[in-house]
């Protein structure tokens, strides 16, 4: 079975149909997706701005203690609502370049966040390494958001 066929069978699934045929479900899930995006932005920015010297003077390992909860919460909600949105129209997504750009940049953003950015911030690292990680992580999430919005246009 090819990926395209998989997309077709997901599209035909009961859950996919329910979301697609409901008037309110898709917009409600989409809105939740956006709310979580805002939260993710706040959590990443409050740490990154401080790392770059443009924000709070509190040690970043201290900021991490609060921020990582919102970051994790936002990522979980984003992925859960994103999957639901995807299930409702997988065939359309399969053909959209913006969707694949988003998935690639999402993979990159998640790896940067959890394997590079978070470990450095948690131990209060300073210097070029963590600064670069902050810039790259913010850039990766911006591309994810941009490509995500672009799925609706292409």
């Amino acid at each position, binding site marked *: 079975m090819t990926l395209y066929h998989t997309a077709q069978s997901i599209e035909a699934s009961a859950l996919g149909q329910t979301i697609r045929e409901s*008037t309110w479900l898709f*917009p409600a899930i*989409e*809105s939740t997706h*956006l*709310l979580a*995006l*805002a*939260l*993710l*932005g*706040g*959590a*990443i*920015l*409050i740490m990154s*701005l401080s790392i770059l010297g*443009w*924000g*709070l*003077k*509190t040690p970043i390992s*201290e*900021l991490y203690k*609060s*921020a990582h*909860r*919102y970051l994790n919460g936002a990522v979980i909600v984003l992925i859960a609502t994103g999957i639901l949105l995807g299930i409702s129209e997988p065939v359309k997504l399969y053909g959209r370049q913006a969707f694949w750009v988003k998935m690639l940049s999402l993979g990159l953003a998640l790896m940067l966040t959890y394997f590079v950015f978070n470990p450095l911030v948690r131990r209060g690292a300073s210097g070029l390494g963590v600064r670069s990680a902050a810039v790259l992580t913010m850039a990766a*999430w*911006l591309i994810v*958001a*941009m490509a*995500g*919005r*672009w799925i609706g*246009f292409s």
Partner: protein
Amino acid sequence: MLEGLVTKLADTPWSIALHESLYMYAITESTHVMSIMLFVGTIAMVDLRLLGISYSKVPVSQMLSKILPWTVAGFVLLVITGSMLFLAIPIRTYHSIWFRLKCLTILVAAINIAVFTFKVERDKAAWDLGAVPAKSKICAVISLGAWACVIVFGRLIAYNWFDCDSISSPIMAELTGCPLDPG
């Protein structure tokens, strides 16, 4: 009066250009969404501090002086891109119930900010690192709720459930400023 202004706006070359351009509209809307991360993201972090549930080691005064300038930058981006989005589709947006609710909620949030700035935070030196007073928590809850509603209403503008051509109740006709469909 507003109706006439909006109709004139729709006939300007600026409006037509934005509406018909493939990339400018998409770029503007994507920038609007990315600016939400900056604006609502940072204001939410400030609100969580003012609620007393997070960042408790950060002085309130520092949270306001170091983070709010970024919030303001985000707001400027949102107003610029938002105005462009309105300019691209003025008549439909003007009548949109969601757009009207969004403007109303922004007004509520703005009043809340004014109350916080001119009243609530005046004695913040007394609670910079101590227990957050109830008045601060109330402002924070109003802010979080209002901006969340603004995001949702903004997203819903795209849906045509209550466009002028599908209005059939007198109340909705009144609220949207649409002519009542005789059918």
